[in-house]
């Protein structure tokens, strides 16, 4: 019976993906992709990966949708949102099918790994946190996470480099406005306090249950976007010093903690057990701020001259 549930869910996921790829029209593809993110989040819950489901729900069903819809709007105003039909691409279809078949074959021949990772189970008491996913992210594989937070910054710098000369000193994204007292403005007033609480709680709970800097940061970014789109808060300019601090503090604190580990434990990014818990919490809070700011700015896009309200 629970297999029926998985089969039905996966059939829907595949159907939605097929509609995204094969349907005509850019807008339809975008809406299907938003729906796709939603269903995949449910899929992650079925797989028992709640931490991933939280990230996918916030990003796949939330931020990506805003990003793509805004891009569609920009392209439409440029007169370039028309899709061209691509007919039947036999060769591409064959290539896709071959790739899928190869992966399916790999699944059946893949050797079953030794479960659960004995090293991880043995190491958990030294991690400083109860949630094994957070322990992996911020302690055992901290290198990955540190470099990942730098990749985010690199993407943001790349995006900012696309700014037109005349827009450079403007505020990020389009100048948002809304009718005072209207539905959008009221919504933008009611949602952020609740979202702020949920985001902070996700970070806080991430140490011992599900959640963490990535999930909480994404939720905070989404909340900030709602407030910005409702015209309640104005996005900063590229040169805003305070926001530079917000963008950099995550990686900076991470590196500092890594150096502290190098001094105390003799190896960069190794957190000795006595300081692991406070160190992880500090990194996590700083990282949340940086992730939230970076993701929100990435979705807002480079500054653009718009019609004055």
């Amino acid at each position, binding site marked *: 019976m629970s297999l029926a549930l998985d089969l039905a869910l996966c059939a829907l996921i595949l159907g939605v993906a097929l509609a995204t790829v094969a349907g005509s*029209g850019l*807008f*339809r593809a975008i809406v299907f992709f938003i729906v796709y993110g939603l269903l995949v989040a449910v899929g992650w819950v079925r797989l028992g990966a709640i931490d991933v489901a939280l990230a996918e729900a916030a990003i796949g069903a939330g931020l990506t949708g805003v990003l793509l819809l805004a891009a569609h709007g920009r392209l439409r105003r440029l007169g370039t949102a028309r899709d061209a039909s691509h007919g039947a691409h036999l060769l591409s279809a064959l290539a896709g099918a071959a790739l899928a078949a190869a992966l399916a074959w790999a699944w059946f021949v893949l050797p079953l790994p030794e479960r659960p990772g004995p090293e991880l189970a043995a190491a958990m008491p030294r991690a400083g946190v109860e949630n094994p996913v957070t322990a992996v992210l911020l302690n055992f594989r901290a290198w990955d996470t540190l470099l990942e937070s730098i990749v985010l910054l690199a993407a943001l710098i790349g995006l900012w480099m696309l700014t037109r000369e005349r827009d450079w000193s403007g505020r990020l994204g389009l100048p948002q406005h809304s009718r005072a007292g209207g*539905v959008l403005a*009221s*919504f933008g007033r009611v*949602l952020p306090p*609740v979202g702020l609480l949920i985001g902070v709680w996700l970070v806080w709970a991430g140490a011992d249950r599900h959640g963490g800097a990535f999930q909480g940061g994404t939720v905070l970014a989404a909340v900030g976007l709602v407030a910005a789109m409702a015209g309640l808060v104005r996005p900063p300019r590229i040169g805003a010093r305070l926001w530079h601090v917000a963008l950099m503090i995550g990686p900076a604190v991470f590196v500092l903690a890594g150096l502290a580990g190098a001094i105390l434990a003799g190896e960069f990014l190794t957190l000795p057990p006595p300081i692991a818990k406070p160190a992880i919490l500090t990194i996590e809070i700083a990282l949340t701020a940086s992730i939230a700011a970076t993701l929100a700015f990435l979705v807002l896009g480079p500054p653009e001259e718009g019609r004055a309200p």
Partner: protein
Amino acid sequence: MADLATIALTAAGLFFFVAGTVGLIRFPDTFTRLHALTKADNLGLGFIALGIALQAETWAQVARLGLIWALALLAAGAMAQLVARTALEREDAE
């Protein structure tokens, strides 16, 4: 007893979900569809959340279910108003 109530409530919730979808498929224009779905799916989610709340193990779970429903109501209300207004202003047909 709680199980029976859960079954009745989730059945009602499922009914409203299906009714909302049927309305979304069958109704003739954008605005009647909008009406059908905002009414039906919010009631559907409300009944399901109530039914599941009876199975909850802690009060924190009940509170979460209440918050989920409140957020869904807020989102659906705001979204229905805004999308309807957008649809009124623009006669787009893809």
